């Protein structure tokens, strides 16, 4: 849980893309292990293993490869600076704690921390998407957001049928894959992956 909060803060505060990818991977793995701590079922185990493989190995490898091909290592001059982003972190955490106090759950859950942390992760993901320029960082933001939603699903201990869980995972996988390809094309077309210069279309 603490690991989740920490990883979020690191993502907010770091400019090196490689480190960002690793941290998001750690976050994914931590999320995969988390449900196993409370209850142990075979179905849960299979799903956890799958999601750990995907988020801990496949995504980081895929994204790092894109990184190497493109030869971009740093997020330069984001819309919102790193200091300010970091400062935003605690506020977001406080905000999500406040929200979760206002939303009474119909039943008790394992840990009262889970919902605020899930919401926090979600907000951080959204914030990264809107405040960073590099297309790759936006994909990372999308992943963080997805992690937050996943954590929320876990928090309410709600298990959808296996097929649907797998479908969600597959969608995320294909999504990142397609976005990776798009990034590759963007870098070839524009010689950079700064999305602030994707602005030919308006009105």
């Amino acid at each position, binding site marked *: 849980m603490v690991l989740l909060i920490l990883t979020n803060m690191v993502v907010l505060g770091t400019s090196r893309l490689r480190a960002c990818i690793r941290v998001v991977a750690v976050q994914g793995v931590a999320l995969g292990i988390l449900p196993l701590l409370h209850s142990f079922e075979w179905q849960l185990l299979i799903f956890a293993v799958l999601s750990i493989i995907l988020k801990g190995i496949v995504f980081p490898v895929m994204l790092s490869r894109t990184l190497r091909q493109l030869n971009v290592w740093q997020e330069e001059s984001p819309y919102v600076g790193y200091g300010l982003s970091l400062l935003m972190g605690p506020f977001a955490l406080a905000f999500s704690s406040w929200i979760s106090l206002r*939303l009474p*759950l*119909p*039943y008790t859950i394992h840990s009262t921390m889970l919902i605020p942390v899930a919401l926090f992760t*979600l907000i951080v993901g*959204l914030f990264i*998407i809107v405040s960073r320029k590099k*297309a790759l960082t*936006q994909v990372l933001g*999308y992943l963080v*957001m*997805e992690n937050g*939603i996943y954590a*929320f*699903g876990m928090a*309410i*201990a*709600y298990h*959808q*049928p296996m*097929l*649907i869980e797998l*479908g*969600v995972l*597959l*969608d995320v996988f*294909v*999504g990142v894959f*397609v*976005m990776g390809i*798009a990034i590759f*094309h*963007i870098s070839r*077309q*524009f010689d950079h992956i700064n*999305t602030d210069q*994707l*602005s*030919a*279309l308006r*009105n």
Partner: protein
Amino acid sequence: MMIWALILIPFIAGLLSLFIRVDVLRRSILIAAAVCHTAIITLCWLENPEPILAGWFAFDATAKLFLSIASVLFLCASFYAVGYLKAERHEPKKDFEEEEFFVNAPEAIFTACLLMFLMTMTLAITSQHFGLIWVAMEATTLVSAPLIYFHRHHRSLEATWKYLLICSVGIAISLLGNFFLAIAASAPDGSSIPLMRSDLAANASQLLSPWVKAAFIFILVGYGTKMGLAPLHTWLPDAHSEAPSVVSALLSGTLLNCAFVGILRAYEVTAAAGLLPFAQNLLILFGLVSMAFAAVFIIGQADYKRMLAYSSVEHMGILALGVGLGGAAVFGSMLHTVNHSLTKAALFLVAGNILAVYKTKIASHVKGVFSLISVSGFLWIAGILAITGFPPFGTFLSEFTILKAIIEQGRYFIAAAYLGLLAIIFVSFSAIAFRMAQGRNTENLPAKNERWLSIVPPAVLLFGVLVLGVYVPKQLTNVLHDIALLLGGN
């Protein structure tokens, strides 16, 4: 059995077309799959098919209506696509807006994505489980992104990136909405109602209403992003204007409807839980805002494909407004779904013909469509009249039904806004479109023979709208009534 066929035929055809090297064969597979899909849908109208996978996929009234629209549109679009692909050359060609060269994506990938698009839409429309709807909806985004990036130049790439990112984030938000619905459906002892549409609606009284409210808001915002409800529509004009016209037609006529189905499913549950007024007000608000946004951007729009795209925003607004008003307006709104899909698809296809001849999307650079390509010119004018709700087209009938319902309910402010916005859009739309059709072409473009494949599909679609304006078949009326009953109409 039938539903399996509906899902598997485009899937298998899509896989096959990835590996086939011969253009003619691949194109015939596209046509064959589209024809089979429509044929099976026709059979389903005659005899209702059994649900499959323990009821996860079923052919209920909503699915019947929306899937039929999607299938018919896809059939017309596939014929058009074959003509389009024949005309597109493989070698690099000059970008007509900026002097750069670009190539097209491989045709095999384009065809495969088209077919997969049909499959994922079938999944999204027929699925009865909220989780499954989500999975299918995200899948439609992913398979349609390569379609938008068919012409590999930087504007289409920009459109694709915006589409991917905005829609993915939107749909992620609706996943959160699904979780809220799951919380709403659980009892204090930890047991819960399955997230099936029918189960939720049947046990609606046990749902926790604050969570249902939150769930509806999140699902509305999430799928609303994809449906193109303002102010979440920002991806839509870019994607529609940069995609090949046949893809724009499918996006506008079928994809937006898919997202609408997602919202309607949630709306049905919300209504069953006794929160109808709450959901209605939200839809009315989003509907009017969308119409207003569209009106502002259509006035003086320079690009005629963007103009059509904003018109989609407007019509999605009308649909949301109609459902939100309740009563007879729900029926009108469902009828309007059919009319809008047919008309807008036809218009985009005709716009593709104009674009192919004039090589510009700037409306003021297009002059004398009538004299140069007369059939397309005729269809263009007919389509413009239809989309702005001119009698005797079906759109007039459905827009009028909604207006009548507003006045009967005595909501004169909404009626005034609705009429005013429609009038503004009518004036600016026709001003732009008629100037394109009339006059002589100043560029001295050579007169062209129009290919059958490029004029018959839009003509058929427009003829359909014309027929619906005069006569609505009994079976269709029954289905529309069934849906309206589910959604708090009559």
